[in-house]
């Protein structure tokens, strides 16, 4: 694939055309050619961008998201020179109110990234216009398999590519398709899991909102491979925009003969519908999700039987994650070898992550497997905020684990993360600095898990509540000798006796923090001390008498009047009244207030 550093989208809406959009387009190509930029910058036509009556002819430059308006061919040489050679935005050509739009979710790719799933996520195409997607080789993979490949050949290609499921467990996708294809029965179903419930993760939402057809196309190809006639996208109700975009995409695909009866004139038929969740994290688990589509409580069922044999309404069903499907068309178009050449021996291709926490650049990234945590945190993430020290990296969402800073050179793939006591999960990646209390983190995730347990299994329902009680007690300074051992025993019970991945994964945040940060647990329990100075019950705000100037700022800002002292004399905090809000330490100009 060619990689362009920028894309220029020229609006060729009828009004813009009348106002000379084609001249703009041609002048642009000439000018880029003259300046030797033609291989770096791609010029494309698009439908309307701004209001053509008042702003046309106009164009959009990505990834910057700069919108130049009311252009004449005479503007172009200057614009190309300034914007693309000197890297300066030409203010006089900008639309009045819309200066540079900053995208808080995805930045232009950094050098260590490869964007396959997110390739169209930076506004390169209009998600509501199927023709934009088609112009970017969209549905070419579908046309190719329908005319040239048998279902078995499709499965073979996906197998060889090494693609593994991106929804959490990393099961080889080609193998899953093979099971569903070989399962007896004429009626088969295909599901896309868009329930993305991990807090902080929004990779799937971004793909659905910016490039819905990449998922639709992947699903149609999968349906052809396994022989499914009906498909569902199960999207969480918290994503109304994604649902809306997806419905438009499906409608347009149907109009273009890409869904429905006899797709592209072949004898293959497939229907696709969107289903919305109703607010239950556990519905992301595949068997709970199918129960929910059937109109039941979204509670997991025992496996086996696996969905491939007995899934939706008891029929063979294939279920994959949004990101898994979004890879498929690219694999068909570029070949299994191309895909398998990216990544590590264990894990092929790329993975999207939602980078969050104490890192300078947060947002969505996409890296080849094998990229190290160090490269992700420092080269792409820009390092730790306020130049603090890295303490740990949490991957895998609520049922994931914490990897200590000492393992920052770990290459990210399914195997390495599992060996380090965490999981790949769906792509949450939270960076934690030295001020993070690991017991508090374990407590936080257990709170989430306990809340979302569907209650079907006793160990999961009761065990997670017990673990939360113990963790809360430790953070409150009431930890007892034996609590760590009690937690470990509960972890074993809950992890082995629960039905679904929620209960089975519940121990991860606890076990991984005990494994790598046992001394922190011990400090809380035996010394009643929180080394990160986070747990409120275990810290005291103290005014250093020799530093305090008696300026009274702290006393005036304390919400509970815990601070006393005469003007110009050292002040004092009453620990029994203090609620440990930390405001005084923030407002003191002399750094006289210390956490002990």
């Amino acid at each position, binding site marked *: 694939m060619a990689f362009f550093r920028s894309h220029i989208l020229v609006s060729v809406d009828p009004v813009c055309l009348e106002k000379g959009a084609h001249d703009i387009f041609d002048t642009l190509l000439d000018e880029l050619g003259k300046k030797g930029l033609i291989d770096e910058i791609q010029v494309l036509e698009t439908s309307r961008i701004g209001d053509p009556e008042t702003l046309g002819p106009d164009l959009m430059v990505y990834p910057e998201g700069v919108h130049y308006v009311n252009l004449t061919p005479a503007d172009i040489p200057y614009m190309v020179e300034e914007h693309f050679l000197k890297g300066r935005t030409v203010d006089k050509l900008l639309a009045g109110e819309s200066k540079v739009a900053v995208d808080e979710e995805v930045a232009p790719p950094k050098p260590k990234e490869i964007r396959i799933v997110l390739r169209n996520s930076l506004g390169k195409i209009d998600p509501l216009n199927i023709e934009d997607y088609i112009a970017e080789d969209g549905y070419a993979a579908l046309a190719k398999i329908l005319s040239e490949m048998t279902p078995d050949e499709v499965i073979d290609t996906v197998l060889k590519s090494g693609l593994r499921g991106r929804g959490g467990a990393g099961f080889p996708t080609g193998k899953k398709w093979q099971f569903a294809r070989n399962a007896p029965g004429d009626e088969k179903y295909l599901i896309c899991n868009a329930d993305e419930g991990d807090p902080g993760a929004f990779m799937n939402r971004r793909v659905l909102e910016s490039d819905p057809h990449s998922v639709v196309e992947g699903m149609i190809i999968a349906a052809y491979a396994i022989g499914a006639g009906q498909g569902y996208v199960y999207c969480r109700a*918290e*994503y109304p925009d994604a649902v809306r975009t997806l419905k438009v995409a499906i409608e347009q695909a149907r109009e273009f003969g890409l869904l429905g009866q006899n797709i592209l004139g072949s004898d293959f038929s497939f229907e696709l519908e969107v289903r919305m969740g*109703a607010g*239950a994290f556990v519905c992301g688990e595949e068997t709970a999700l199918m129960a929910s589509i059937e109109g*039941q409580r979204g509670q997991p069922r025992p496996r086996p039987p696996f969905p491939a044999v007995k899934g939706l*309404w008891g029929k063979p069903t294939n279920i994959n994650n949004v990101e898994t499907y979004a890879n498929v068309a690219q694999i068909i178009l570029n070949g299994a070898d191309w895909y398998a050449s990216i990544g590590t021996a264990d894990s092929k291709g790329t993975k999207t992550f939602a980078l969050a926490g104490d890192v300078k650049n947060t947002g969505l990234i996409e890296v080849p497997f094998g990229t190290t945590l160090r490269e992700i945190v420092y080269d792409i993430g820009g390092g730790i905020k306020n130049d603090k020290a890295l303490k740990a990296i949490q991957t895998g969402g609520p049922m994931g684990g914490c990897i200590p800073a000492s393992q920052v050179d770990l290459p990210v793939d399914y195997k390495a993360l599992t060996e380090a006591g965490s999981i790949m999960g769906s792509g949450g990646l939270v960076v934690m600095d030295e001020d993070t209390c690991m017991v508090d983190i374990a407590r936080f995730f257990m709170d989430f898990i306990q809340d979302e347990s569907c209650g079907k299994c006793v160990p999961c329902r009761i065990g997670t509540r017990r673990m939360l009680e113990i963790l809360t007690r430790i953070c409150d300074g009431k930890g007892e000798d034996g609590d760590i051992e009690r937690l470990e025993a509960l972890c074993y019970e809950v992890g082995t006796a629960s039905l679904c991945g929620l209960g089975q994964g519940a121990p991860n945040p606890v076990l991984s923090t005990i494994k790598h940060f046992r001394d922190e647990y011990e400090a809380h329990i035996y010394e009643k001390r929180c080394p990160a100075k986070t747990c409120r019950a275990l810290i005291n705000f103290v005014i250093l008498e020799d530093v305090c100037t008696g300026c009274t700022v702290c006393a005036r800002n304390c919400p509970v009047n815990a601070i006393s002292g005469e003007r110009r004399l050292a002040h004092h905090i009453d620990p029994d009244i203090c609620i440990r809000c930390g405001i005084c330490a923030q407002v003191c100009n002399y750094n006289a207030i210390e956490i002990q």
Partner: protein
Amino acid sequence: MTVGTIASDKARQVAQEVCQQHGATRDELIPILSDINRQLGYLPAEALDEISTQLKIPKSQVLSAASFYSMLSTQPRGRHVIKFCESAPCHVQGGREVWLALQDQLQLKSGETSPDDRWTLETTSCLGQCADGPVILVDEDIYLNVTPDQLSGILAKYK
């Protein structure tokens, strides 16, 4: 959205209409419940009753599904439902301050409905908008990058 409890004939009528729209089959149960919940603000007992008749499934199963999902409510709610994202990424971006201010301005705690039926305050887990947190959802309108001082302006839009 609507005030207080719903008259039982209205509940039945809405339930009937929605069942017809979706087709009265078992697999439409969750979409049907979600739709009625959206129209009436909650799921009155009569509506559940009507669904059970229309879909020919036991009432216990309808109730079992209705009580499972956090977005469905079997209790009356205020005219406007405010959902506050309580997940970690929002929390650390100033969500804590917004949450305290919100409870303070509404004089409500999570799960409560105001005496004049104007507001119900709820928390939700991550809405996937973490890059622009803190996030609150009022009915179906989403507000991003919320700060405590914006709250009164946002709340004033809903009567």
